[in-house]
């Protein structure tokens, strides 16, 4: 597959997963109404509202928030003209505006991008990645990060987090009502015991399903960013060998918070992830294989 078909496939899959999220929300609401009756409909907007407010704030101020959470320091062109020249090259290739650039003092090689839109984009590099990579590799990494900016991944992950959050809150409220509210209020509406059991199961399992969907979306966005990076540089070998450096390296970024783990190019958590279903990144070997396949097309 070349990068265009890769991009199209990953975009399609993201849409599919977002539709899956929407179906899940609908299922939860339906299950809640079946189990507790329509008198509880009022809590749906409350749950969505709480999730929206909590996620929207971090989406809107993503660039500033992530700086404090990762300890990144903004730098100017005079601080690292070579890095800036490389970033300028990729902005020209992508047609994006120049992002803010930051450095994280950490010997583990890694990088991330954030910001609510291309005008507020921020890309950050650890001192470790700047030391470990040559020009082509760093260009691949920059292209991957700017690809996240171009694909609006901060927005996509905010949407995923909002729906997952709303589902979690809703399901939490419902389970509490089950224990303290004494079950259904209007038993006359839906007497079917199988439906009740299914509804109960949906309410209990939905938050887990939402987390799985959220992780799957994150993985698809990573693959999409790899493909888009190749669209920018037309050099799959650069990003591929950069990922190989990351694969060989076993050091992990010293995180102040795990809540921003998903934004790095190489996940700082996946090494200990329970299963690949929960991980926010595709396995690095798989990403390398896809890029190698693109190289063989040239």
């Amino acid at each position, binding site marked *: 597959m070349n990068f265009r078909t890769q991009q199209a496939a990953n975009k399609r899959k993201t849409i599919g997963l977002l539709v899956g999220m929407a179906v899940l929300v609908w299922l939860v609401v339906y299950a809640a109404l079946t189990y507790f009756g329509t008198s509880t409909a009022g809590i749906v907007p409350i749950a969505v509202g709480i999730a929206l407010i909590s996620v929207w704030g971090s989406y809107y101020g993503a660039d500033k928030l992530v700086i404090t959470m990762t300890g990144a320091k903004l730098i100017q062109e005079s601080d690292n003209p070579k890095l800036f*020249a*490389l970033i300028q*090259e990729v902005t*020209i*290739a992508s*047609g994006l505006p120049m992002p803010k650039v930051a450095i994280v003092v950490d010997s583990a090689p890694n990088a991330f991008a954030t910001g609510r839109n291309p005008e507020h984009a921020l890309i950050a590099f650890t001192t470790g990645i700047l030391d470990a990579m040559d020009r082509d590799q760093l260009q691949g990494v920059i292209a991957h990060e700017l690809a996240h900016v171009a694909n609006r991944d901060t927005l996509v992950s905010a949407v995923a987090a909002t729906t997952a959050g709303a589902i979690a809150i809703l399901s939490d409220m419902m389970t509490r009502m089950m224990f303290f509210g004494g079950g259904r209020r209007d038993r006359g509406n839906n007497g079917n015991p199988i439906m009740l059991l299914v509804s109960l199961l949906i309410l209990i399992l939905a938050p887990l399903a939402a987390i799985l969907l959220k992780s799957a979306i994150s993985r698809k966005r990573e693959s999409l960013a790899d493909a888009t990076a190749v669209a920018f540089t037309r050099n799959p070998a650069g990003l591929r060998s950069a990922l190989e450096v990351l694969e060989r390296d076993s050091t992990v970024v010293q995180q102040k918070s795990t809540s921003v783990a998903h934004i790095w190019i190489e996940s700082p958590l996946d090494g200990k992830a329970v299963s690949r279903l929960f991980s926010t990144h595709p396995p690095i070997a798989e990403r390398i294989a896809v890029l190698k396949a693109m190289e063989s097309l040239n």
Partner: protein
Amino acid sequence: MKTIVVLGVIALIVLFFIAQYNRLIRLNISVNEAWAQIEVQLKRRADLIPNLVESVKGYAKHEQSTFDAVVTARAKATSASSVADVAAADGMLTQALRGLLAVAEAYPDLKASANFLSLQDELATTENKVAFSRQFYNDNVRSLNTAVKTVPTNFFAGIAKVTEREFYEVEDPQDRNAPKVTF
């Protein structure tokens, strides 16, 4: 009730028309912007050349023909305006610069001078920027030309006065030389 449905359908059709029209206009503007970016980068490169030539001249006085080739190519590049002309001049200038850098190879003092090294660095990144702006322009032309030729946007190309645009194709003699196979 019926009139509401009819009005709704008409509104949808109008919105669809507007969307197609706007898409073409947007694509056309992107191509113009991408073209402007190429010109910015070519200008940056042209501005670097006098300094580069001067710094090489300081060490290699007798390479007049190489200098002349660069200066002529630069003059052509700065005066060209149509896509094909700019692309041709760009290819010539790239070729002439390659000759200049090859000359520099023969002068160790020149190669070691800090001024030359920094100019060479700057030229390398400018060349990259030129190449990327070219690629970005061609990507945009590709989207525009596809839209001009495919349904449904092709019906609106005339109204929007948007036509197919020319790709930026660099003639690089080095690319032309296919490897000779001998048996």
